[in-house]
């Protein structure tokens, strides 16, 4: 038997002995041995407040029932959660919560996934003995263009106000009035501004805070739920695609403590309408100036033929929202089959990427003592959930310095030489400034200085790792004189054809003015995409592809974590993008024989061994240093 450790305590819950670290709440100790204690106000990410009084349990030697969510375990403690007293009290407190609850479950979006409903069934009284008029409050109060508040359904658990205070730090929601008149609201009823409001709907244990987009869309039991990744930025927050009858109803969070810590931003959460499919569509080719519907076979043959004519003078742009598997094939199509090095995934000028850009993992921000956010709000805007991690870190004592891109000196002066661990965050557009600051800080301080560069798109990092760049191959391999031209040079580089692949309207190919002129003169534009865009008008071939939410594959977030996206919506009449890419390559003489995405992933890992990280959904480690 292991020696008794002083930081462990052993207690008994319902006769079962359990050993947990000191500082564990009774609630969590019980959970550890599978004992469920009903809760409303308690939330694993927030400090205990013990306001709802749902979780009261018996603790031997204490005269009163104790809140399991707020009382810490002690050695030798004897807890009972299923006694007659507790059971009777649970009926009492649920009865109290229900006397002023409208019980409009049949028209409530929360119905079916509502802790109040569930716990009333499990622990509550069979019937109410309250026969007075209920207190009435405003219903369907718009808190913003995203959220509705039903003040009658609110059970005043303080989760939303605590989120606003402890998680986002914006203090936008507050308790107003007191007693039975207490309501939740914003200052002067002004619309809420937060970019994290969607989280309120998930933490609210009743249907008081609901999403306007999801209003009356579905019943929870009618939803098909698919684990995937947020398509909106390079943070890589884990989501669940909830679809009803093959249409997306909402994105919900899916906790990954290393990435999102269980939260989403509103930009990501409410981005799903971009991925709704309008209807069925067939491939089209341009003949005599107008687009004609054809079969995939015909369109692929047409594409291969046209690409052959363009020879090595064809450029390829693949979106930073493509999967690694698609990018792997795209790069092989260009480098091996078409012998063209004109590859890009970018939309503007950015400094070269390198493995050091991911030296600071997202979760390590909490373990730094100083973090410089170079570019301030601009960095947050590029990956909004970063703000929540930064605020959490700040509450733990990490010093967060938000400075403008040109104000690196201010950060340099502010950071003491004794600092142990410093982090720098910047967007890829400002990478050079971050590198410069890092060098200066490394000279000044004793400790480590690491940076994390926010990229663009849910797979901007993967696109760089896989070499969707004119001058770098997979794994940041230098092309030594065999470099091609990047997107900005294409209009003047004698390019004879362009292949654009994209599957997200959020990260599509948006032509600049100069590019628009050039595109209209190009003899070949192949547009392999999910949704129609102005590029359709200049395209010679339109190859319908799957949306980000309709396919299977992997994407790499800004810190190099390879995560899986899955098919939340079934669009089986659309040919998988990888299959089309393979068929184009084979029509040009290649002999690829992939039968599945997994086989492509396998090849990818063989070519780029650090990508074995995909098996653990872990971060790619390029060398010991990262």
């Amino acid at each position, binding site marked *: 038997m292991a020696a008794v450790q002083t930081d462990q305590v052993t207690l008994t819950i319902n006769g079962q002995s359990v050993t947990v670290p000191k500082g564990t709440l009774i609630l969590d100790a019980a959970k550890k041995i599978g004992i469920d204690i009903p809760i409303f106000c308690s939330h694993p990410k927030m400090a*205990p*407040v*013990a*306001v*709802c*009084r*749902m979780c*009261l349990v018996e603790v031997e030697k204490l*005269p*009163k*029932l104790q809140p399991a969510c*707020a009382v810490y375990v002690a050695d030798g403690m004897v807890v009972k959660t299923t006694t007659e007293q507790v059971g009777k*009290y649970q009926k*009492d*407190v649920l*009865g*109290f*919560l229900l*006397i*002023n609850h409208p019980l409009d479950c049949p028209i409530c979006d929360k119905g079916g996934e509502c802790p109040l409903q569930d716990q009333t069934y499990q622990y509550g009284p069979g019937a109410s*003995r*309250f026969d*007075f008029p209920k*207190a009435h409050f405003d219903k369907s109060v718009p808190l913003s263009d995203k959220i509705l508040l039903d003040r009658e359904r609110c*059970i*005043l658990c303080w989760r939303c106000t605590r989120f606003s205070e402890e998680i986002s730090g914006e203090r936008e929601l507050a*308790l107003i*009035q*007191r*007693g*039975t*008149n*207490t309501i939740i609201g914003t200052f002067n009823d002004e619309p809420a501004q937060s970019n994290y409001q969607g989280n309120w709907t998930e933490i609210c244990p009743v249907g008081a805070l609901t999403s306007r987009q999801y209003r009356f869309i579905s019943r929870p039991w009618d939803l098909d739920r698919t684990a995937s990744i947020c398509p909106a930025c390079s943070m890589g927050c884990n989501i669940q695609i909830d679809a009803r009858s093959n249409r997306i109803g909402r994105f919900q969070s899916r906790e990954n403590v290393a990435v999102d810590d269980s939260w989403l931003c509103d930009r990501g959460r409410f981005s799903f309408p971009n991925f709704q499919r309008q209807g069925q569509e067939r491939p089209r080719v341009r003949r005599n100036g107008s687009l004609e519907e054809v079969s995939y076979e015909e369109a692929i043959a047409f594409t291969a033929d046209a690409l052959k004519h363009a020879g090595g003078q064809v450029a390829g742009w693949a979106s930073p929202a493509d999967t690694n598997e698609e990018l792997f094939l795209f790069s092989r199509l260009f480098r091996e089959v078409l012998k063209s090095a004109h590859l890009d995934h970018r939309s503007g000028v950015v400094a070269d990427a390198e493995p050091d850009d991911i030296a600071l993992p997202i979760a390590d921000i909490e373990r730094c003592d100083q973090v410089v956010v170079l570019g301030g709000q601009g960095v947050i805007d590029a990956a909004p959930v970063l703000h929540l991690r930064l605020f959490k870190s700040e509450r733990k004592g990490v010093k967060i310095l938000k400075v403008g891109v040109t104000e690196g000196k201010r950060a340099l002066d502010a950071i003491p030489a004794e600092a142990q661990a410093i982090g720098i965050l910047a967007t890829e557009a400002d990478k050079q400034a971050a590198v410069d600051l890092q060098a200066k800080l490394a000279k000044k301080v004793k400790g480590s200085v690491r940076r994390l560069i926010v990229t663009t798109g849910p797979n901007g990092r993967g696109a760089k790792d896989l070499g969707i760049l004119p001058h770098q191959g997979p794994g940041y391999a230098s092309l030594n004189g065999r470099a091609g031209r990047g997107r900005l040079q294409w209009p003047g580089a004698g390019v004879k054809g362009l292949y654009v692949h994209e599957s997200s309207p959020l990260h599509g190919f948006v032509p600049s003015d100069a590019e628009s002129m050039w595109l209209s003169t190009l003899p070949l534009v192949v547009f392999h995409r999910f949704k129609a865009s102005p590029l359709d008008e200049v395209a010679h071939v339109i190859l319908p592809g799957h949306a980000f939410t309709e396919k299977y594959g992997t994407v790499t977030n800004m810190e190099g974590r390879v995560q899986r996206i899955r098919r939340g919506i079934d669009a089986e009449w659309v040919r998988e993008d990888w299959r089309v890419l393979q068929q184009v390559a084979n029509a040009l003489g290649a002999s690829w024989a992939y039968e599945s995405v997994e086989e492509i992933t396998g090849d990818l890992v063989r070519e780029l061994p650090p990508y074995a990280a995909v098996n653990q959904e872990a971060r790619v480690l390029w060398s010991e240093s990262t």
Partner: protein
Amino acid sequence: MAIKPLVTKDFATENLVQLKVYERTGGYTGYKKALEMQPDALVEEVKKSGLRGRGGAGFPTGNKWSFLPKGVYPRYLVCNADESEPGTFKDRYLIEKSPHQVLEGILIASYAIGCNLAFIYIRGEYLPQHDALETAIAEAREAGYIGKNVFGKGYDIDVILHRGAGAYICGEETALLTSLEGYRGEPRLKPPFPAIKGLYGKPTVVNNVETVVNLPHIVNNGADWFKSIGTPTGAGTRVWCMSGHVNRPGNYEVENGTPIRELIEEHGGGVWKNRKLKAFQPGGASMMVLLPEHLDVGLDFDAIAKAGSLAGAGAMVVMDETTCMVDAARRYVKFFHHESCGKCTPCREGTFWMANIFDAMEAGEAKPADIDLLLEIGYGIDGRSFCPLGDASTWFPRSVIKFFRDEFQQHIAEKGCPFKKQPQEAVA
């Protein structure tokens, strides 16, 4: 027992509110003497005196002081002058009669615990009392009792006077601190207790007005002298705020242990209008009702607790034979419902429910089952609430059901209040 005014002994002195007059009655000698002592010795002296808090819970004052963690500064003393419980008005009296005595007590307590900044949190409605304290603080500052390096003893002290905004809950010490910090007045989770993490997260002692006014006398006369007054577990005197159906309502300071009968009959001049005593409530709106059979119980924490009620904040509400006990309970329940801060479910919803039932009783719409339902609601609130406000909301009504169930049954059977037929007098 003999009447031994202690904290009110000089209250007949004209212009006692003025510093010069207060000094002439011996004022501030306790403070000066305290400053000659080591703070720890002062704490020991107060511990030895047996002084118990007069704010409601009767917690030994010296012990409370000694809970402050060693070496953690700054630390604060907060004098609780929120006094908002129906039936209580002793702190108001102590302040308006002798604001300097309150201040002197605060200064002694501050010195004892090593506090350099003390606060007085005064009920918002107590405007004249606020002004009296404000003047007293200015005078004391002028005279050098408050300030830097007081009397060259190297002790710095300042006092800040803060008005509440009219919520009963802000008398509860943690809600008071929260309110003092500028937030909504709601109680905080304990632990940590204020002694460890109080005002602005620093070690804090909260003491009632009447508690601190005893300090100058303890310092001047010694712990043994103080201990000799009152009962073994209830040293000293208490100022009882007597109201209701007595001939002479008002504040009366009596030695602890004095029989309740003496307070009501001798000091209060007995029940008014030659009526008979029906019931009385010691302690304040929270406390359980007692009956004429309890008249010989001594005015003392432990004796009253043994009789089934609590001495609480030292109120004595007298009810004559014409009082409708259901209506009395209804008023208190409505008070608690109104004052419930709403933080926790049992108190917020339970007081709302009880208030509804009591209104139905009054309106003659209650059902026989409602009496036991009230008891059950009370059971669901008491001991389950976040703070004692919720618990206490159930004590008076439940005790009334215990002793006067027949009045509830009458309300139900007669579809209304049986006392309405008689001329009605105000209660409390």
